[in-house]
């Protein structure tokens, strides 16, 4: 019994460690908004970092590459709008 408890704490601690180390790691209470916001941020970061993708988007939008990069960074702030209202039960 005691061993199980420590193991569970151990796993929890590991998870917390992962979450603090790798931004975007999910957790059991992760809601739809959190998940999709992370997806979008990952995607924008990736698009910005791959030179070919950045050029591609710049051509489609008829913008300069620097502007496209700037836009993508700005969109990483809140790609999917503000978070959901937290229900009082969660507190």
């Amino acid at each position: 019994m005691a061993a199980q408890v420590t193991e569970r704490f151990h796993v929890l601690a590991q998870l917390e460690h992962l979450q603090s180390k790798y931004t975007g790691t999910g957790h059991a209470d992760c809601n739809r908004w959190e998940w999709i916001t992370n997806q979008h941020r990952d995607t924008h970061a990736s698009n910005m970092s791959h030179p070919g993708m950045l050029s591609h988007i710049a051509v489609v939008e008829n913008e300069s590459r620097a502007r496209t990069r700037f836009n993508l960074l700005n969109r990483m702030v809140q790609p999917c709008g503000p978070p959901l209202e937290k229900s009082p039960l969660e507190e």
Partner: protein
Amino acid sequence: MHLYNLTLQHQTAINQAVHGAFSGTAKVQEIAIGRGNVIQLLYCDPKTGKIQTLCNHEVFGIVRSLMAFRLTGGTKDFLVVGSDSGRIVILEYHPEKAAFERVHQETFGKTGCRRIVPGHYLATDPKGRAILIGAVERQKLVYVMNRDAQANLTISSPLEAHKQFTLCYGVVGIDVGFENPTFACLEYDYEDCDNDPTGEIVAKTQQTLTFYELDLGLNHVVRKYAEALQDPGNMLIPVPGGQDGPSGVIVCCENYIVYKNLGDQPDIRVPIPRRRNDLDDADRSLIVITYAMHKTKLMFFFLIQTEHGDIFKVTLETEEDLVVEMKVKYFDTVPPANAMCILRTGFLFVASEFGNHHLYQIAQLGDNDDEPDFSSKMQLEEGETFFYGVRPLRNLVLVDTMNSLSPLINAHIGDLAREDAPQIYALNGRGGRSTLKVLRNGLEVGEMAVSELPGNPNAVWTVRRSVDDKYDANIVVSFVNATLVLSIGETVEEATDSGFLATAPTLGCAMIGDDSLLQVYPDGIRHIRADRRVNEWKAPGRRQIVRCALNNRQVAIALAGGEIVYFELDVTGQLNEFTERRALPGEVLCMSLSEIPEGELRSRFLAVGVSDGTVRMISLDPSDTLAPLSFQALPSAPESLLLLEVRPDDNKGPASIHLSIGLQNGCLLRTTVDGVTGDMLDTRTRYLGTRPVKLFRVKIHNKDAIMCASSRSWLLYHFQNRFHLTPLSYTSLEYAAGFVSEQCPEGIVAIADNTLRILAVEKLGVAFNFVQHDLKYTPRKMLVHPSAGVLMLIESDHAAYTDASKTRKRNEMADDIEKLAVEPEEVELAKELADVMRNTQLEENVFSSPRAAPANRQLAYHNLLHCSIALVQFSQIPDMYMALVGCGIGQHLRHPATNRGGCIYTFLLATNGEKFDLVHRTATEDVVTAIHDFRGSALVGMGKRLRVYQFGKKKLLAKCENKVGLKLFDLFCEVREGGGGVRGYASILRSLCVKLRGYVLRIVYQFGKKKLLTKC
């Protein structure tokens, strides 16, 4: 599975460019460029103004950032590379090997271009004590750099400067002299926004300019100071400090550039000036896209570039270490760049974001001209700005261009020009700088001179007067029954006193000994001494000389019937015949002697091609002169031979001997000759063309190269540690020789039909040569007429003006000016201004295309985006081709992505493809992203639907439809017909905006039911 691969044509876009003294040679600067998966080192030759590629290095990864880095007191720059490898890599360039070598490679994270894995940003301490490598979000690592006892570069373990929930827009190293290294970051903290359901905090949160200090004593990084910014910034520019300047940083924000520093320094803020009478959307913010800094002991300045490519010169005025004024002045307009570098030699290298890259000479710094200075001291209301007019280049002079295919939008491979070899038709570029490039495999040949000769010559040589001469003195041209000698000077003229026998054809000629000439003609050998004394050796009666091989001291001739006579020059400069002759089992077809290796008296081997289909190696060693050594049978009779001694690059070790054999069947064989036994090993074959292959020795980059003439001409040369065999993009040549003159240090003189041509090959190492045709808008797609050699292409740009809408907008703006004027004088002036406005049309390939404001777009100025084009043969009119162009109307790309439907224009194509007429327009519910000919009807992909259309008189008639069910509005779909019998399938490939992941959907058309069914 991933395979490492080398492409025929490496990437041509330049994403990063940094300059520095990478070779470590005093006062020489090179430019290191990142081309996606290739790192190159460029050198801009101050004498010729040409860009040379010193080194080309495949990295098999993605280069995301580059930075030059120099240790304190060092004279050589290292190259720091941020890539997708999850590592920081420091490279050193070794000029003697012409290669980069890795000095350090430290792993810190996962591979891939990820959000929190560093690699996107690099910054170095200007004093060379630390490097910061940063990610888009959260992570920043600082490495302390030092020297060990042997003066080698050392790297520390990384120090973390992470901050959760923080986006990074830019990082630079601040010049703080020898105080603790400090880095400035442009950051955005979104933690509070993520916890605020109302969305109010997002509107309030500002970017911060944060300073990180590396405490060298405590060996850790502290967040020293952070300051909120008034305007959102996109870039930081470091300002020189210490002796050279005030230190600090320039923050490039939307519409403003702001100088900031730690301490008492107040912010110095200047609006970014705008173009006067610009058609561009006036509500759009202006941003700086790139910058270059130039620093000398006395002054420094920045060149900053805005989105249209306008460059401004930015200078700072200081009073007692405080900056009091910032001045901005319009400099010139060049293509918008990914990076710019100013070199000490006065060059400005512009790595364009799209299209060709340029090298400019800075002719003047724009100090004393009538261009107005815009200063931070001029008081302007918030939101107001300065205005300037654009003009052609004044301060810069274009000196060289590097071809770029980026962005390559579409390409077609085919022999439309009927040239035997296919061409690549590539659509590339963006907006007004778009081009259609025709690529041909081959080297570009510069034609220096073409002159007609009185008849069709057979052969051509160049000879020098003496061993000390740098340049060739004569061109010798041989005809069927005569020889013409031309002297090379300012012009090329006929020389009469050369001592050559003019009444016979020449088989070979060369300078022999120190200063005499040798002419071999069918009846003998003529040895012309420097004082014009002539010694002749006559061929034995009725036996003519058929072939010869010469070098500086040795002469071998072949008599008809297959006998070889050998001569050698003695110390007195006399040509002596060797007592014996060597008979061969057939006629001699070709022979070759290599140049005499340095420090030796003779070349050891004579290669002879014999009519029995063999090539024989004959010894010229004094101990066994003319003894046969080895022979090799050939698949076809030899036409030409060339023996070359190739010295290793570092000039150490023995030279290797290569024999190239041109065969009559059009193949080139290359073998290595054993330096002792004369054995021929390691034969490689290459097909060159339909005609027998002739080989000629020429010089390229001071090394021996071989020019091969067949139905096409090829050049075999050594470049960047590799042998290249590349065709020349030029008419076929019959005979060639190296040509060295003052005007043309490494040329080729060649004959083609009855002309003598002097050629030069400059752009070495490239696989393709480009012919460029300018386009007006970004090309989207093209199609090739099946019978006529005609290309049709569609061009369009998001949010662009058409010619008509541009004129309308210009007139509207002119009318506005006129309306505003009230007083009579004002009216006069306004009228003038308005007229100028109406009549100025900026060239869009120089000054970029304006972007229409959303309001103007709503008025359908140019709101049609051409998306697809296809040739369709409708079953109702089977003998005619229709060109269908699919368009989208009123597209918004996001927030949310919407459109106001689409349409298909049907054009009737004339049989020879020369003209097309509009038949009708068919409105559709969605953007038409793909069209394909499909069994006498048109298969059309639009939005989520796939539809079959047939031809009708007023419009196309929809026959059946399938709702694909996928959100196709941001998909680029391409419909291909395949399969056989009654079934066809269409595949929808590649999503556009999300990621390049392929969705392939199989759709089956049931003929009986006229239905499209989705199959998985």
